[in-house]
């Protein structure tokens, strides 16, 4: 069945809420369907307690949802923009990620924390960031970065069912992108998806950048270059086996991500592989700079499909 990326997550959430009365969602403007329409129609079906509006109070939303999770509900927290979620960093990093451990296993925080991220037409420096590598650095969190409607459906369902707190980063630029969704598909969190097969170079990516990698792979096919595109889907845990297996065949690795290259998760992937095998490796990320408003300036910090294709050609020379 064809769905948009936004519809897929909405469907998954609606199904999860039908199955489990303790699942509820809370965030600013959810009652009217969410800022991007990703909750459209859910208030009508589930009522205001379970599709709950919230004050503009990110720390309040995150802290309160955590309290409600500890007593046995399963909150889906909407942060509106990943950038605003930084207002609730103590709640996520010091409280949610650590409670189970600090309390010696007495509590769990089964939460999905949705943080729409990424470049989205002239949103400038405070509405455009990709900070997934921050969360990969925090023990206790699962970090999910779906790139397709299929994954935004199946990963959302798995995230709601997961007993760990899941930082769930949807990319704002692809809410309306359409794709086939097979409701029965059940690739678990932590498993990568091979989006394109190829024997010359492995491109590891996630989120919207992975869609660009697929474009690049398709473009290079006519040149006779085999690009294997691995969509990590989750940064923690990440599918080391899939990456090692692929690089073991190709001997060449490119990691491409929209976020800043310095200290990005690409560095972790490259380092992990390089510690274990001889590999020709390359990272493609944004310059360590800020995201501007003017479209031409915004474009200066984008990783594009052309850049990924060029890097693939170069590394295969």
């Amino acid at each position, binding site marked *: 069945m064809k769905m948009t990326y936004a519809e897929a997550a909405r469907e998954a959430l609606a199904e999860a809420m039908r199955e489990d009365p303790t699942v509820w969602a809370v965030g600013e403007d959810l009652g009217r369907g969410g800022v991007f329409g990703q909750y459209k129609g859910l208030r009508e079906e589930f009522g205001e307690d379970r599709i709950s509006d919230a004050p503009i*109070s990110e720390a309040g939303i995150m802290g309160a949802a955590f309290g409600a999770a*500890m007593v046995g509900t399963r909150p889906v927290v909407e942060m509106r923009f990943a950038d605003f979620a930084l207002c609730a960093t103590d709640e996520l990093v010091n409280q949610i990620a650590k409670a189970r451990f600090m309390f010696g296993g007495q509590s769990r925080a089964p939460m999905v924390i949705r943080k729409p991220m990424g470049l989205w037409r002239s949103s400038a420096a405070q509405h455009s960031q990709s900070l997934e590598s921050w969360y990969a650095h925090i023990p206790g969190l699962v970090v999910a970065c779906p790139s397709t409607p299929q994954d935004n459906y199946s990963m959302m369902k798995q995230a709601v069912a997961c007993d760990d707190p899941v930082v769930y980063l949807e990319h704002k630029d692809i809410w309306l992108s359409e794709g086939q969704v097979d409701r029965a598909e059940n690739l678990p969190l932590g498993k990568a998806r091979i989006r394109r097969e190829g024997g010359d170079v492995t491109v590891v990516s996630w989120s919207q950048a992975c869609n660009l990698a697929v474009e690049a792979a398709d473009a290079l096919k006519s040149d006779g270059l085999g690009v294997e595109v691995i969509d990590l889907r989750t940064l923690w845990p990440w599918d080391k086996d899939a990456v090692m297996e692929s690089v073991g065949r190709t001997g060449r690795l490119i990691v491409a991500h929209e976020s800043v290259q310095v200290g990005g998760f690409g560095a972790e992937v490259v380092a992990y592989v390089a510690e274990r095998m001889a590999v020709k490796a390359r990272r493609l990320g944004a310059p360590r700079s800020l995201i501007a408003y003017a479209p031409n300036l915004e474009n200066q910090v984008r990783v594009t499909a052309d850049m990924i294709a060029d890097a693939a050609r170069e590394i295969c020379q």
Partner: protein
Amino acid sequence: MSQTNYDLARGREMLECMERIRAFELTAKRAAVDEQLVLGAIHLSVGQEAIPAGLMRHLRTDDLLLSTHRGHGHTLAKGAPAEAMMKELLGREGGSCGGKGGSMHIADFGVGMLGANGVVAANITIGAGAAHGIKLLDKIRGDDRICVDVFGDGAINRGPFLEGLNWAGVFDLPVLFVCEDNRYSATTKTSDMTAGDGAAARARSFGIVTHEVDGNDAEAVTDLTAQIVARIRETRRPEFLHAKTYRLDGHTYFDPAAYRPAGEAEAEAQRSDPIMRQRSVLAAAGMSQDELTAIHDAAQAEMAAALDEARSAPWPDDATVFDDVQDLGSPAREAF
């Protein structure tokens, strides 16, 4: 209080509770100072015992409690066993949290204690959320628990104070916020760092029913909180208690509190030590000196025994270090 109607059993229970808290705190302090058995910082509630002693007795075991870095007293009064708490302070196997948390993260979910917190004010929103969870569960399967969310006067200058109180007000949640005002934000006078009229005035501005009490008067605390707890159980709406007390010890056990005006602590101990006050109340109601001494001695003996047990308990198994981080991507299984 009329002597003829005085409830001696209730007064005695509160003294027992306060003596236990103080004995726990001073035993832990000795274990830290004399034997270096308590390895991390502990924050003692000496002088503040009347608030937990008066309040927690109205709660059911399944009612919820969230507390602060200065939370030993609340946790004991809620019913957590002293021995497990002492083991936790020493970082030993069998501690409340298996030695993973220490003093600032003591939790005992078995008695509804959802955690002390190392971050000032952080528990305010979390406690509001626990009450939010109760409200949601009530609609699913019936749930008449309430939540008590304790924080200090330093916490009212952090954002979660506003966000948590607003949340509880907006969503009508069964939570009692307790500002335990010991006059010091760590090592700075709170009044020097707080604009306006303070905790109660701020709480009232949210439209939350707000009370003030002499937090060193166990009888006053328990009379007032009996009504508050009963009302929240019924109305399912938030209330706020500003309980004024005084921290007789330093911020941490190793803080000599030299920043306080000379003689302040001594004068407060003389004037308003809650244990001394409760002993006077009980003596006036007919309790003998021998009985008062016996209550004191029993508390000392209980905590000395708890320390002995803790001292001889083993360290946690090294292998537990990776337990309870997360299921997916657990460090116990992942290469990293």
